[in-house]
């Protein structure tokens, strides 16, 4: 099939060919976001699943031994016989069997009673609070992930592959990925192929917008144009690199996570992904709808985890679910629940500690509205993920979260480091001494992000020989070819905080 026909079948090519816009032959990158060095997070990935509408926490993680629970919800309670027991007083909703399996394997952590002081019961305000990591009475216009990315990758580095800093699967772009300092830190698309085809034929322009309100709008549109052009190819390549190894539920969330798995395993170095699923605003007749929502949620996420294992990327990924609030303890008059406050959330991955963090919800000590009081501030979970998953230092973390939040025992830190000293080897170069060139071999026993760099004896970097996310295997690169003066050189393989160095001698 020729390319044109192929594009047509995808339904994405305009009739008589696309128009190409080049303004002054300026390269597309002129408006690109700063590039970055993915080794800052050591190849680690955070996947967020946003449950929009306010998930009913009490019917998700059920305190089945508490009579207050049954009394408050005579019509919609989950019966003791139906729960999937994880202890003698706590159980999961019967639709969460896939989560139960992950829990039993120690790959799922339940964090209980997550909320914040002075909870807001508006969907929109509370969503903004969660996305911006603000206090309840504080209005912040950017997202905690946006600020994290700006801190973690502050300076552009020339050598880096141009991977997006964050990806949202879906058509709109969340506040989560924005930073007021640098604008839109992430990009969004529904699927890589469609994204690639849409971009076909576009190029960016470099006319500087005027310094007006309209000019500010125009600058944003141009930034988006440049990002879409820059990343379309690289994302399609990553998605084409590997194929999903498991069947996902045929739901929007299932499809979103299938794409994320391919992009992570396919070599994209993007550290943060955002996916979302709606429908949790269960004001009426919630029993069936909530069961379906949870089935989709747990089925999609467990497929994702299984897929990552088979694709060899599970060690790098942690997933967190979140929702703007839980729901009222007492059911309402319509077989549903109204907006509430604190609720449990899930942190899932091969490297989590497993178990339950926190205590059962206290159904006797409610606030004036009959809502739960929180035990953990949601920003404690963010702090934990930033520090223990994404490797951020405490002082930078405080700047991202606009305050100091104590971390929780969620991530198993000793297993979390993928680039440990036993996971790679750098062998002595051959020949050595050499003239004009020599071969350097290294071996990776697990997939990881590496840099292979040559230094001179003063410590100055001579050349980066290799870098990027690599699958397990043996690699050989060449150094030399007469471009360098005689002398001693050091070659260093770097993976995260681990290094191995060899000494080489060039004798002309």
């Amino acid at each position, binding site marked *: 099939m020729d390319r044109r026909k192929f594009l047509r079948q995808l*339904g994405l090519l305009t009739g008589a060919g696309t128009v190409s816009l080049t303004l002054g032959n300026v390269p597309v990158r002129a408006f690109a976001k700063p590039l970055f060095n993915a080794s800052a997070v050591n190849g680690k990935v955070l996947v967020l699943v946003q449950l929009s509408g306010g998930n009913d926490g009490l019917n998700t993680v059920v305190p089945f031994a508490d009579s207050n629970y049954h009394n408050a919800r005579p019509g919609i309670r989950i019966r003791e016989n139906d729960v999937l027991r994880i202890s003698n007083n706590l159980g999961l909703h019967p639709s969460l069997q896939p989560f139960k399996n992950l829990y039993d394997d120690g790959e799922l952590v339940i964090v209980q009673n997550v909320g914040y002081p002075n909870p807001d019961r508006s969907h929109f305000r509370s969503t903004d609070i969660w996305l911006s990591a603000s206090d309840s009475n504080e209005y912040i216009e950017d997202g905690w992930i946006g600020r994290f990315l700006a801190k973690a990758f502050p300076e552009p580095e020339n050598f880096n592959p141009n991977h997006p800093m964050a990806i949202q699967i879906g058509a*709109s772009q969340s506040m989560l990925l924005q930073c007021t300092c640098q604008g839109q830190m992430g990009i969004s698309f529904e699927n890589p192929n469609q994204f690639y085809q849409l971009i076909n034929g576009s190029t960016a322009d470099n*006319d500087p917008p005027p310094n007006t309100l309209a000019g500010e709008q125009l600058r944003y549109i141009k930034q988006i144009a440049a990002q879409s052009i820059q990343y379309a190819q690289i994302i399609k390549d990553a998605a084409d690199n590997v194929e999903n190894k498991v069947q996902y539920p045929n739901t929007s969330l299932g499809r979103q996570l299938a794409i994320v798995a391919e992009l992570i395993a396919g070599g994209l170095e993007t550290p943060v992904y955002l996916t979302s699923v709606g429908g949790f605003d269960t004001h009426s007749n919630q029993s069936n709808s909530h069961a379906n929502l949870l089935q989709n949620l747990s089925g999609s996420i467990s497929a994702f985890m299984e897929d990552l294992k088979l694709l060899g990327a599970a060690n790098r990924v942690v997933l967190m679910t979140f929702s703007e609030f839980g729901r009222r303890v007492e059911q309402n008059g*319509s077989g549903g629940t109204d907006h509430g406050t604190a609720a449990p959330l899930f942190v899932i991955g091969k490297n989590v500690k497993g178990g339950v963090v926190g205590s059962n919800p206290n159904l006797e000590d409610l606030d004036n509205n009959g809502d739960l009081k929180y035990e953990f501030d949601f920003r404690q979970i963010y702090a934990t993920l930033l520090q223990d998953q994404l490797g951020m230092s405490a002082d930078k973390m405080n700047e991202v979260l606009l305050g100091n939040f104590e971390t929780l025992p969620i991530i198993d830190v000793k297993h979390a480091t993928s680039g440990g000293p036993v996971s790679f080897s750098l062998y002595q170069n051959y020949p050595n001494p050499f003239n004009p060139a020599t071969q350097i071999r290294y071996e990776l026993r697990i997939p990881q992000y590496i840099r292979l760099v040559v230094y001179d004896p003063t410590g100055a970097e001579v050349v980066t020989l290799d870098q990027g996310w690599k699958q397990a295997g043996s690699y050989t690169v060449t150094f030399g070819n007469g471009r360098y003066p005689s002398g001693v050189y050091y070659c260093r393989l770097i993976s995260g905080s681990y290094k191995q160095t060899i000494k080489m001698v060039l004798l002309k």
Partner: protein
Amino acid sequence: MTGLQKISDWDEKAVIHILSRTILGYTQQDIDFALSLTPDDFIDNYLLADKPEPTPPFWVYDSSSDNATERTRELTYWWYNLMIRQGYSFREKMVLFWHNHFVSEIDKVGLPQRMYWQNKLFRDYAFGNVKELTKKVTIDPAMLIYLDGDKNRRGAPNENYARELMELFTLGIGNYTETDIQEAARALTGWRVDGVTSYFQENRFDNGIKTIFGESGNFGYEDVVDIIFRQPACAPFICRELYKEFIYHVPDENFVNQLADILRQNDYELKPVLSALLKSTYFHSEEIRGSKIKSPVEFVVQVMRQFNVNTPDYNFMRQTAEQLDQKLFDPPNVSGWDGDKRWINTTTLPARNVFTDSIVEGEKPNGSDLTFHIDLVEFARTFPEPENAAALVNDIAKIFIQFPLSEKRIEYLLETLLDGAEVYDWSTFDPQAEKRLKLFFKTLMRLSEYQLS
């Protein structure tokens, strides 16, 4: 009150700005017509004109759930048709505004018939009294279902509508308490839906004393709305929404409060506010021009009107707007579409370009023909000086782009039109003219500036 001073210059620039913010696409003829009148005459008697009620689809009276998907589409095409043929009245833009303000989603509402009746309500009150509209919306069948008002009954309150009424429709967050919501929910009890109509069922109504914003009584839904509209936050809240729709996405509280005074003085009648807004020096200030990002529906409608296409491909318009994240009758959630920068992302911006390319080519991305064809050569000849390339580029740009284009941009557009030829060689009678115009229009509408109005 400086911002509300009436503009003194009624020139082409003022007319272009006012048209681009109200009627979803305009032509050279529209500019000429507006300039032939006084601003008062044009704004009050044409832009703000009430128009006869359009004939609805025949099925809106029954309450059968047959063909709901097809009927929703039909209703969408029906509405698009009204937008295309709106004339000078911007009533349909206001209907769209209310649809995005008093939000309901077809998925939960169920019957497209109910969405029609809600749409009609928005049309009846497009420029009407906001307080009265809010009362009607409160017992509108679609809204009763969407925000669970029909489930709200004595002894078993459901707060859903009461909360959104205050938070999203009238006052804004921070201007009410949880108690106000709970008490208002009690006063809103008793309303139910039967098919496409709503009715009051006495024995479901909470007949007790409620206290809302400090006022006590055995209130019903009209009292709730009256009490809310007596709160000082109400008029500014509504004017803030108008400001965001017509001026810029970040409200200027000073000007919002000036508009709110007018709204209050006129007991929530909208026309005096809109009239003052559109005539104000504030609205016509240089800063505001070209600073609004077009919504998908505006985008697909205005292309058609710019090219004078009276019978467009409604199916393609609908599909495109949906791809661009705006499906009529199906806003994403109760707060509606976020708008502004949220419309533009790495998926939707390229998709907008693909759409305008298709319009120029007369062919959809999948290779099939559109239901209409634009004769670009004939279209070029509707401008005053079609044989003068530089004038033609300037005149066309006036219709398509509101952002002040730089010299360099105009030059680039001229080069694209000429496609290597000399300026004096340009002629619409040249065999290459159509090809050149195609490339020119595709380029023009791919400019980032084209996304702004």
